[in-house]
């Protein structure tokens, strides 16, 4: 009862960063329980190539299911496959990323198994015969500790909260058969519209530059884009007010009802810091805020605040970051 099963999320043939974050957590849980990490990889023919990456990030075993029905996310077939494996015995926990698809998958698996499910965890540990997870509740104003009895326990992990760690293991491949025919699922993804491929997604970015109404006009988001560009691996987000006004796409909105992010560095430009917004970014490691209003609530959570006009300060900041990163 000591092994940990982790579902490796992929898109377009590549493992997602959240899959590697889940590997780190699975590895530390398996180490604590004295068991193995089994990474379940279900995808189209060729997905087997990702075995190397899973092994490098701590997989003792890669459970490989290749089938064209797993090309896109297939909730029904994946639930059946993961639940069948998880109930085959020996698993202490099932670990899944709390991505859009992970949040679809994890509760279904828990229901199928009759297991306890902790969603969107920011920490997970094994405590005797229990699994203990912590998660923010009530827009991040409170933290709840959840205790799950029985095995396996199912847990999904808040994206960006856990490190990606290289820790090579054998990653020996064990092929597993789909349960039923994955191409006959009732729900079918008929089209996938990719966002701009040049654009780094918020969940993949280690630096996020976010803008609010204080940027004054949609065209001033070019300053946010430019600052993100100066950092390199950065993405641009926004507040709900800005996306509601149509300045930026809804998918860029950070907050309780939008995206929840935890980058290494979060730079808030002209954002006052409404509760709604703070709930989506307060777990960021370092927070910088630039705002003209000294009393703005964002300054209460900002590690480094500058009071002043964003439109004047950001160009100087862009120049400073470029200078500091010369040679990168």
């Amino acid at each position, binding site marked *: 009862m000591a092994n940990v099963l982790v579902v490796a999320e992929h*898109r377009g043939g590549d493992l997602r960063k959240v899959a590697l974050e889940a590997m780190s957590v699975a590895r530390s849980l398996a180490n604590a329980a004295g068991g193995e990490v089994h990474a379940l990889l279900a995808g189209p023919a060729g997905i087997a190539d990702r075995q190397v990456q899973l092994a490098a990030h701590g997989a003792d075993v890669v459970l490989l299911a290749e089938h064209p029905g797993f090309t896109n996310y297939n909730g029904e077939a994946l639930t059946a496959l993961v639940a069948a494996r998880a109930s085959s015995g020996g698993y202490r926990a099932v670990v899944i990323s709390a991505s*859009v698809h992970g*949040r679809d998958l994890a*509760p*279904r698996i828990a*229901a*199928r198994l*009759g*297991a*306890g*499910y902790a969603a*969107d965890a920011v920490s997970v540990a094994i405590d005797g015969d229990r699994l203990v997870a912590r998660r*923010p*509740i*009530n827009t*991040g104003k*409170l*933290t*709840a*500790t*959840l*205790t799950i009895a029985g095995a396996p326990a199912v847990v999904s992990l808040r994206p960006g909260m856990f490190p990606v760690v290289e820790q090579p293991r054998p990653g020996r491949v064990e092929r597993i058969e789909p349960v039923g025919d994955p191409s006959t699922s*009732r*729900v*079918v*993804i*008929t089209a*996938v*519209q990719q*966002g701009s491929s040049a654009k780094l*997604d*918020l969940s993949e970015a280690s630096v996020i530059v976010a803008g609010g109404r204080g940027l004054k006009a949609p065209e001033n988001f070019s300053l946010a884009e430019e600052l993100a560009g100066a950092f390199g691996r950065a993405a641009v987000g926004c507040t709900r007010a800005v996306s509601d006004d149509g300045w930026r796409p809804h*998918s860029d909105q950070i907050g*309780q*009802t939008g*995206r929840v992010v935890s980058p290494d*560095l979060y730079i808030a430009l002209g954002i006052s810091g409404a*509760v*709604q917004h703070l709930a989506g970014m*307060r777990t960021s*490691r*370092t927070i910088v*805020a630039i705002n003209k209003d000294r009393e703005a609530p964002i*300054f*209460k*959570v900002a*590690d*480094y*605040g*500058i*009071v*002043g006009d964003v439109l*004047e*300060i950001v160009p*100087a*900041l862009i120049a*400073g*970051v470029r200078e*500091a*990163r010369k040679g990168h």
Partner: protein
Amino acid sequence: MGRSTVKIAVCIKRVIDMETRFRVAGDGASIDETGAKYDVNDFDSYAIEAALQLREKAGAGEVAIVSLGPVAVQEQIRKALSMGADRGIHLAAEKVPADSLAIARALAAELKTAGFDLVLFGKMSIDSSSQAVGPMVAELLDLPLVTAVSSLTVEGGKGTAGRALEGASETLSFPLPAVLTIDEGMNTPRLPNLKGIMAAKKKPLESRPAQLGETRLSTTRVELPAERPAGRIIGEGVAAVPELIRLLQTEAKVL
């Protein structure tokens, strides 16, 4: 096009007002709700509106509201009825359990034989935000599931839904009956008017005990989050930029 009939259940949750200054209760594992205000969970309002629009488009049918919790949840069921839903079902429980699967089991037991074409949920509750009960109900009832639906059309026993992903979006097709969880912003939830409020008082609202069953998950502690170090204003205007760069390099080590 002839009239068709659509039968929809919308599962809603009574949630505490998020502007509340939260205090931890004496047991250290729950919230002190003294004097708190409540409303229908934001996301559920979009699900209610979606159901009403589908019933109006079909020309006939029924929208039933289901909610689990103490007798006070009848207030939120009445609000949904005042928006235009037809009847309410209150699954009585002393409190809403922390275990999503216990909630899902009680809802599934209620919905199992009721013959709904669609069972709708809000994508998440604004308080616990687990996004778990809807998918679990789908699983327990063995119904097709689409989560985080941001656009929806239903016709001739089939549906098409849109869903936003991280940096992409997808289109899904599904047969009825199905379970859907509705994202915010899909529509503009109507506000109850006086006529609706008066009519709601006469609409049927049944109450019966929730069949919660066993729970495997419990909340063992609730606490205020570890406070970030108090915010620090390092300066004003462009003049503060060099100091910020220095701190990002030497202290935060992110540059």
